[in-house]
């Protein structure tokens, strides 16, 4: 489960980190917790909140198109944003699901021994500290939506459920066009 991303992405990653430090003050108007808060729906009682969440769009023509590497296309996307934990206990995100994706995985981006940046499944999940945040961003940690079953159109929304130590949390996440994050995904590098 490794993906290599180009050097330009590494530059972008640095930019994103700086940006997040400056501009993470937005409020979570786009996404709401619907299941883990016991139905109250208010941010203070939600177990986990997604601020400024979005999912990269995937147009219909790209569904089933041959991949640049010549292998089978694996239509996929990713969810980004800032997970916020307003509770007094750490929350661990261990997985997820979505009606538009056959598989949902938690990914991290790591530097390999050769210096290249690679994406891989995050062992142990994402830990959102009590009263803290966990940033999902292109080139960094993110939630992969794989084996898409439908196009994800710009300006629509998709439901994404995260499995957490505090129970499942479902977000309605806006879909947005994004020209970055175009790394190809080969589940088995040796097969190409």
């Amino acid at each position, binding site marked *: 489960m490794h993906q290599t991303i180009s050097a330009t992405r590494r530059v*972008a990653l640095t*930019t*994103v980190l*700086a*940006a997040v*430090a*400056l*501009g993470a*003050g*937005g*409020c979570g108007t*786009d996404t709401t917790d619907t299941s883990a808060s016991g139905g109250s729906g208010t941010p203070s009682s939600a177990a986990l909140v997604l601020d*400024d*969440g*979005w999912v990269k*769009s995937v*147009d219909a023509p790209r569904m089933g198109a041959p991949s640049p590497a010549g292998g089978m296309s694996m239509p996929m996307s990713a969810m980004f944003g800032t997970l916020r934990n307003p509770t007094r206990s750490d929350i661990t995100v261990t997985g997820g699901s979505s009606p538009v994706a056959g598989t949902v995985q938690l990914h991290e981006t790591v530097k390999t021994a050769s210096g290249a940046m690679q994406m891989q499944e995050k062992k142990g999940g994402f830990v959102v500290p009590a009263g803290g945040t966990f940033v999902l961003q*292109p080139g960094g940690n993110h939630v992969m939506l794989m084996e898409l079953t439908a196009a994800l*159109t*710009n*300006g*629509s929304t998709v439901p994404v459920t995260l499995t957490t130590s505090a129970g499942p949390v479902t977000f309605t996440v*806006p879909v*947005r*066009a*994004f*020209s*970055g994050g175009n790394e190809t995904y080969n589940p088995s590098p040796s097969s190409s």
Partner: protein
Amino acid sequence: MTREHQHTDGTATAASGPRRRTVLLTGLAGAGAGVVTGAGAAVARERATPAPDLRLERARASARPFRGEHQAGILEAPPPYAAFVALDLHAGADRDAVRRLLTVWTDDIERLTAGRGPLTDLEPELAAVPASLTVTVGVGPRVVGLAGAERPSWLAPLPAFPQIDKLLAEWSGGDLLLQICAESPTTVSHAQRRLTAGVADLAAVRWVQRGFREPFEGPGVPMRNLLGQVDGTVQPDVTGLDADLLWVGDDGPAWLRGGSSVVVRRIGMRLDAWDRVDRLSRENAIGRRLDTGAPVTGGRVDTPADLEATDELGFHVVDDAAHLRRAHAAAPHERFLRRPYSYDDGTGPETHVGLVFVAYQADPVRQFVPVQRRLAEMDLLNLWTVPVGSAVFAVLPGARSGEVLGQAMFA
């Protein structure tokens, strides 16, 4: 509307104030751990607090509210920098595509005007100074048709003015309009880039007209066009008695109530020819003095012209073909709100310098066309001006809390 504005200000303050301080303190704690203790720590903390940058604070605080009955960017005094961007929906666009595009723009514009980047913005620093940013969205007949809404009769290209028009397709028409205005050209450019890139899968840019006004505009420093004339002097009282000249009312399509229309015409200026004209002839052409903008019959810039006044030879003091006389409203409804910007594209054809003429009104055919028709028939200024672009858009009503721009089109 008020609530969102407060939220906006609160966000901007929180992003610049406490957070920066937290970073500083963290840095101090790391560097001076074990050395700075007790009262010494307090002193160091005091010294480390930089003098507040009031200029930046003001720029960050200058966020205009986005939500409301009307869109922003119409009633406000025009800030000095603008971009007018027309887009065409891709072939095959349907009702859902229109709705999704307006959903993206509503969210993006609300964030940008509040000084935040859109969701996908990897450079939100470029949005951090709202600089009074407003983004005003207009739609053409194709969008209204795709949405399935009633098309106002006036939503079509203006009638031709064959005496003067030299219209080029590259400056005319369009399915959608973004009017982006701010006090910072960087803010305008970033908003333009994000708003067009964010819907590139749905619509392509057709034309862009950048404009500028006098950054020091104010009492004693009026807006002057690049012919040197004081421009935009006579305006209807659109926040008072003449509000119905600006906003579509009960006689218009229900989805457009609280909206308006905008005419964007690109008027090239033949400056080489203008340079050969003496100052008196220039004032005669417009019917106003160049220095004060007052009518040639005297008074101040806002003094009504005496159109009947004659000189010792019996000729009208305001020339029979002067722009002021020909543009004068023949009926009370022949008035509209002008929001013009100058343009100077540096080089190119003769019309690379001129005016982006922008007029808002409830009904352009009823209010604007009669005036433009008189000017096309006879106006001394036509010797030095050439219309090279023309477009008409319906200006959507404002989006109230929780609404998407133009959502009433889909009702």
